[in-house]
């Protein structure tokens, strides 16, 4: 456990030793902030119009603002993941420090978990900062808190699966650009695979739909907790961590 923590601490601190962390977080907050602002503006227009028309149905901030915001957020995340995970293993492989890790008395699982936790904590912090936007809604509006928390749970489960996938791709190459492009391709495929579901046959279509990573997020964004989606994300995470472990193990053989 101490070994996992040592690797985790080193990798996590390394983010903040370079400008990467600040640039990534700033970019993410900027893009998600713009979306939030646009959604908020249109929501305000709509609710103003609704008020003028004296309709009896109150506009629902959870459904009309928070849900589309989280759907947008999930797509932005797909684009940010590769930047977060690209250096995880690639940098060590390039630097020669991979040799240090593999010849130290560490098990491969300790290396994989340490690196995963470092990238994942960074992700948690980055996405957690968007809670600032929610605070404004709670200060000047009255959204329900539970659906918001469930949406965050969805963001973090989605992230766990994707971050693990990014770690896996990064463990395959010593080139950070290749790692980023590879991870980006993977996240895009996992997203787009659902689009083609309608054109495939029934069985294949259902299968493709099942693997569409954003489809599983839909319920979370509505504030609906469905354990089958949790199972999907967690199994994807475990699969990816396992593949990362195999990749680290076999990199010895390939080297």
């Amino acid at each position, binding site marked *: 456990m*101490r*070994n996992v923590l*040592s*690797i985790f*601490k*080193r990798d996590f601190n*390394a983010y903040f*030793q*370079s400008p990467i962390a600040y640039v990534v977080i700033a970019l993410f907050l900027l893009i998600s902030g713009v979306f939030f602002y646009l959604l908020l503006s249109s929501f305000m227009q709509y609710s103003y119009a609704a008020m003028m028309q004296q309709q009896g149905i109150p506009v629902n901030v959870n459904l009309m603002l928070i849900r589309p915001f989280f759907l947008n957020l999930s797509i932005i995340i797909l684009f940010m993941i590769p930047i977060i995970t690209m250096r995880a293993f690639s940098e060590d492989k390039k*630097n*020669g*420090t*991979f*040799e*240090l*890790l*593999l*010849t*130290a*008395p*560490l*098990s491969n699982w300790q290396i994989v978990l340490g690196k995963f936790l470092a990238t994942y904590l960074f992700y948690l912090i980055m996405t957690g900062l968007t809670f600032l936007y929610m605070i404004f809604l709670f200060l000047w509006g009255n959204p329900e808190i539970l659906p918001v928390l469930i949406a965050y749970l969805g963001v973090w489960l989605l992230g766990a699966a994707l971050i693990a996938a990014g770690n896996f791709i990064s463990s395959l190459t010593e080139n950070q650009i290749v790692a980023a492009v590879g991870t980006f391709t993977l996240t895009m495929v996992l997203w787009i695979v659902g689009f083609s579901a309608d054109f495939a046959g029934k069985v294949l279509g259902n299968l493709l739909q099942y693997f569409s990573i954003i489809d599983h997020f839909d319920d979370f964004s509505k504030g609906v907790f469905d354990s089958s989606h949790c199972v999907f994300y967690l199994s994807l995470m475990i699969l990816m961590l396992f593949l990362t472990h195999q990749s680290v193990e076999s990199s*010895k*053989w390939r*080297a």
Partner: protein
Amino acid sequence: MIEVSGLTKFFGDVRALDEVSFRVEKGEILGFLGPNGAGKTTTMRIITGFTPASGGTVSVAGFDIFRNDLEVKKRIGYLPENPPLYNDMQVKKYLRFVAAIKGVERESLAAEIDRVADKLSLKPVLNRYIAGISKGYKQRVAFAQALLNDPPVLILDEPTVGLDPKQIIEVRELIKDLAHDHTVILSTHILPEVSMTCNRVVIINNGQLVAVDTPENLNAHLKGSDTILMEVDGRVDSVIETVKKIPEVRSVAVTSSIRTGLASYTIETAVGADIRRDLAAKIIENGWGLLELKTEHLSLEDIFLKLTTSEEELT
């Protein structure tokens, strides 16, 4: 302490190591020699558990690297060919990280870092970022890293690369000093380094073991023939003919022809047969000018070259 037997390694179809076997006893410094690409780094990487072998076994302190790699890794301090440093860390934090993953207890971290920093005189740079220190310091930080947690076995892949002459001497002294209670394998290109620091030498070429012995024994062994260097002013073909008539002579070769009639020759003779008197007499007899005549002693360089280039000569 270290036992390597029948080590074979394939990279695809390329045989990088072929049945390499040797032993290193406790407290010994073993020098690892060979031209670039001979398989030195590969052998070291197999011993440290970074790369698995395709065949053969390695055991360190009785533990097999394949079955019990964690036990082996605990006992080895490894300085790889490329210093495994994180440029974005301060020297002290880097050493702290490596000490932690090597299992140094939390309470003794500071003392342990102090100990290795002292050994490699790293005190002035402890708080500097690794990216900003000189190559010599980087090499020494990498060396310090290998000493953390005081492993009984040290594997050093070219430990003096990038150091200035004064630092090289310091590091050699350090290696000798460490050898009292450590077992050391070190690879190098610098041959005098081997004769200066090592008790025994392993020479490998094209993945094959060519020799394992003490530097002195190698010297004696390899003198399968004595060599005489000679410079003579006289017709080359008749000089060769005359020299060949001496019974102890095995071969004569022209090393360089300075101008017509003046050339230097290398003469191989049976061991212990000093034929310089005969040679001189024969040359004077023929009325040629004897400009130089001396016996040649094999240095480690010659042994190295002899052992590693003989195959090419055959083809």
